[in-house]
């Protein structure tokens, strides 16, 4: 890999990272590097400064408090997959993390990196959207919580400000009431389409991977289910209002077809 030239700073604390971001215009955070470095290789990103937060062990944790689970942003996928707390209290996150990429990716990639990268083809953002997770951002003037529904603002764009870092993700303790199903042509590939289904507060939330510029809630499915439609009828609404991409992994039509099939399977997994 031969990226453009960049400067490098190692942040010792989260606040130091925030400070570095505030002082530099064109800085990017580096955690596991599994999203950012490929972009730099292809020159889709050429930041002037990389602020390395990869060694902030203070941001790697999974804790339960007040009926929700708090996950440190630097928790690696491998640790999510192996977490007893998650397996018991919010299994869909652990199960999804287990299926991300390959072992190398799971040992380097972090949940915070995946979320802030905001790639609509990533698995965890979709699951978090379905879970109505809260993202905790820390900036120069302190912390704020951002609802998942407000977090993913565009293709590779999030509500995080240039001088903020994501420190924590909070998800509800739903036990096993969640499922994530994805399809890829080849093992370990990005999802061609993925579907998360979650039971939360008496409703069924459904969210979609790779069906538009951001992870999306499948509003048509949710409304149909709320109105009492059966799984098959509701699943047929999965692609409503979406604008999936066309590429070598599938045309937009194929993705729309997959969205319905996978929604049905996710809902069945939820019931199973």
């Amino acid at each position, binding site marked *: 890999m031969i990226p453009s030239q960049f400067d490098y700073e190692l942040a010792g604390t989260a606040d130091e990272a925030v400070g570095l971001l505030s002082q530099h215009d064109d800085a990017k955070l580096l955690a596991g590097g599994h999203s950012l470095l490929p972009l730099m290789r292809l020159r889709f990103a050429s930041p002037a400064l990389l602020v390395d937060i990869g060694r902030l062990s203070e941001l790697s944790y999974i804790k339960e408090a007040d009926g929700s689970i708090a996950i440190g942003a630097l928790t690696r996928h491998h640790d999510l997959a192996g977490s007893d707390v998650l397996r018991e209290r919010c299994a869909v996150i652990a199960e999804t993390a287990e299926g991300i990429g*390959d072992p190398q990716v799971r040992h380097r990639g972090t949940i915070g990196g995946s979320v802030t990268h905001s790639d609509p083809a990533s698995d965890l953002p979709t699951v978090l959207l379905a879970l109505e997770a809260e993202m905790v951002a820390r900036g120069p003037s302190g912390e704020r919580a951002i609802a998942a529904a407000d977090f993913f603002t565009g293709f590779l764009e999030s509500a995080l400000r240039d001088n903020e870092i994501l420190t924590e993700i909070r998800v509800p303790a739903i036990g096993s009431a969640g499922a994530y199903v994805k*399809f890829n*042509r*080849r*093992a*370990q*590939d990005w999802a061609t389409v993925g579907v998360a289904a979650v039971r939360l507060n008496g409703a069924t939330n459904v969210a979609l991977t790779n069906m538009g510029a951001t992870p999306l809630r499948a509003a048509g499915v949710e409304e149909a289910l709320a109105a009492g439609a059966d799984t098959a009828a509701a699943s047929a609404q999965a692609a409503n209002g979406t604008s999936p991409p066309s590429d*070598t992994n*599938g*045309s937009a039509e*194929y993705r729309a*077809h*997959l969205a319905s*099939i996978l929604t049905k399977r996710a809902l069945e997994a939820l019931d199973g």
Partner: protein
Amino acid sequence: MTVAIGDSSPRIDGEAKVRGTALYGIDYEEPHYLHGKILRSTVPAGRITKLDTSEAVKIPGVLAVVTAEDVPGRWGHVTVDQPVFATDVVRYEGEPIAAVAAETWNQARAALRAIVLEIEPLEVLGTMQEAMAEGARLLHPGWESYRNHFNTPREGNLAAIVDLRRGDIDAAFAKANHVIEDEFEVQRHHQASIEPRVCTARFENGRYVIHTSTQWPFNVRDGTAGYLGVRTSDVRIVVPTVGGGFGGKLIPTLEPAAALLARRSGRPVKLVNTRKEEFLSGCPRENAVVRVASAVTSDGEILGHRSEVLMDNGAYGGEQPVVAGLAPLMLCSNYRMGAISHTTKLVYTNTPPTGPFRGVLATYCNFALERHADHIANELGIDRREFRLRNIYVDGDESATGQRLEGVAFSDALERLDEVVPWPGLGARRHPYQGVGIACTVWNTNSMPSGASVKLNEDGTATLISSATEIGTGAVAQGLPQIVAAELGLDAGDVVVSRPDTDLAAYDGGAQGGRTMFMAGEAVLGAAREVRDQVLDAAALKLEADRGDLELADGVARVAGAPDRQVSLAAVARAELFRAGPVTGAGRHTHPPVSFDTGCVTGSVMTTFTGASYHVHLAEVEVDPETGEVTILRYAVAQDVGKILNPQAIRGQIYGGVIQGVGYALFEDLRLDEGICLDWGFASYRLPTALDVPPIDVVLLEAEDPVGPHGAKGVAEAPIIPVAAAIANAVSDAIGKPINSIPITPFTVLEALNA
């Protein structure tokens, strides 16, 4: 422990490769070397109207810039049609136009940017249909003036035409109860060597010394000399550890440019392809169309066979005119075909040149033949395995070109495979959307010649000096030293193997076509036997024993049954120095000619099989009818290897071939659009991963070859060949609809299901 034939003797390069200490071509550096880079065309067709390098040479650190003016010659493996740098006309995206060498990589890049290049676009003949259309522009207007080493038929945009006619084809079709026709289409297939092409050249004492990542050093030597217009002995090729070949590194690519830059700059020059350059200039397996029609009787006898193969050659011939000649053999040498009428056309297009890739055109000729066999069987209501058993070759049958085949192991292979995975039989019910497919193939072992020498060292070890090239198969790292060790009674690790070096070792026909053990192995065996002879003579004198009573084992020569009467090979070697001279042997080998019906075929220089091996593959798949996904549940291979020399190495090659075949069948597709390459990285060009690989059962058969060392045949090339056919037959069986193109994607499966 003394090595024997049939042991899983370990690789001598294994530890270095696993630990990362092996020195690959990309690691190789010479003192004060320069960084070379190549300016390549970004358009697939055009006329060069301006090429000005005057600014580039002024850039600090730039020591050489070369263009077609510096090397006007052409070269070609068969047809002499290709320049080092485009001359006036550009014929494919990625074609080299100029090259630079500079002190740093960045200076070399800057020099490329400073070259002023203007190209007036020409109509792009991006597909075979366009290039073959009535009145199409000629890619090579001077094609008639090109030299052709074999005088094979050509015509305009057809770079080669192969014709085979045997028997009365019209009568066969007139007599048939059924005529069954199919058309098949296959994609381009990239070798995807992890190590890109890379070479370092220097000019020294009037000769070019080139360290390069190649699988056929003597061909690169000859080609480089041909391009440069020098004697072949003025080029020396040395091969560091090679990071993958698969057929893609047989012909010269970067070497002539590196040699020119080295001579011009007076410094060593290293050229490395980027991954994108690999995809653009890697000589992939060609995209092709195969049309087959069979005249059959109601009980499944084939009376006649008509077929046509269209192969996309890309812009220049390379080895492809040779490969084309194999098409009729591969389409017509599994089953008794009756009368045959076959034509293959190799078509020039404005696309990157295609070339050999493990199994060459056999992968898709077999796909076509075996899909077609299933079609015939299904049409006639005959069980697909039974149809094969009725028609498959047995001893004494004649190949498509009239070669009489002996030692045909098809029936054995079908039977042995059935013991591992019993064939479900006609109409046996399986789960819905599960299917099973088999595919049979014969394959040739390349019979290019080889020489080698072996010397007994003064410490009792041996050194093998050969230009046989290790490209990962284990043939040189495992098999050849095993032959030497077994002959001389040495331990694994007591045989040192030289690097391939055209200055040092005898000619070798390259790591291709499964030939290294088959041909180099026989030369090595001859050399080792000479050494053995000398050792036995010397030991007999020393031990005052009869030569016939001696055996070589554990590094000693000893009287069989009298272990106290022995002498070490080290002592023999040292004593011989002053009695008769160093203990050394030379071996050389070429294949005896094979007779065939010379009148039946034109345009082919690969008319017969040597070291023919026989293969049956079986795939069980499950199709998801909603997503179109294909899952391979199980895979089994029955392969005739002649003689099992090293079972571990053989299994490794079979697993690798099957996996590469799975990629070809399901995932890989090097796409082009109007001559522009759409895939130039592994983000979009998808290779199978470990998790995509099914469990693979392997059954080895030994139908010994009369020529190969200890009866061995080529092993490593063939296992890729029947994979696409076996999988496509299984998928077609699972969905009850024909799949006649690859790769088999979820989209094509759904389309077939909904058809």
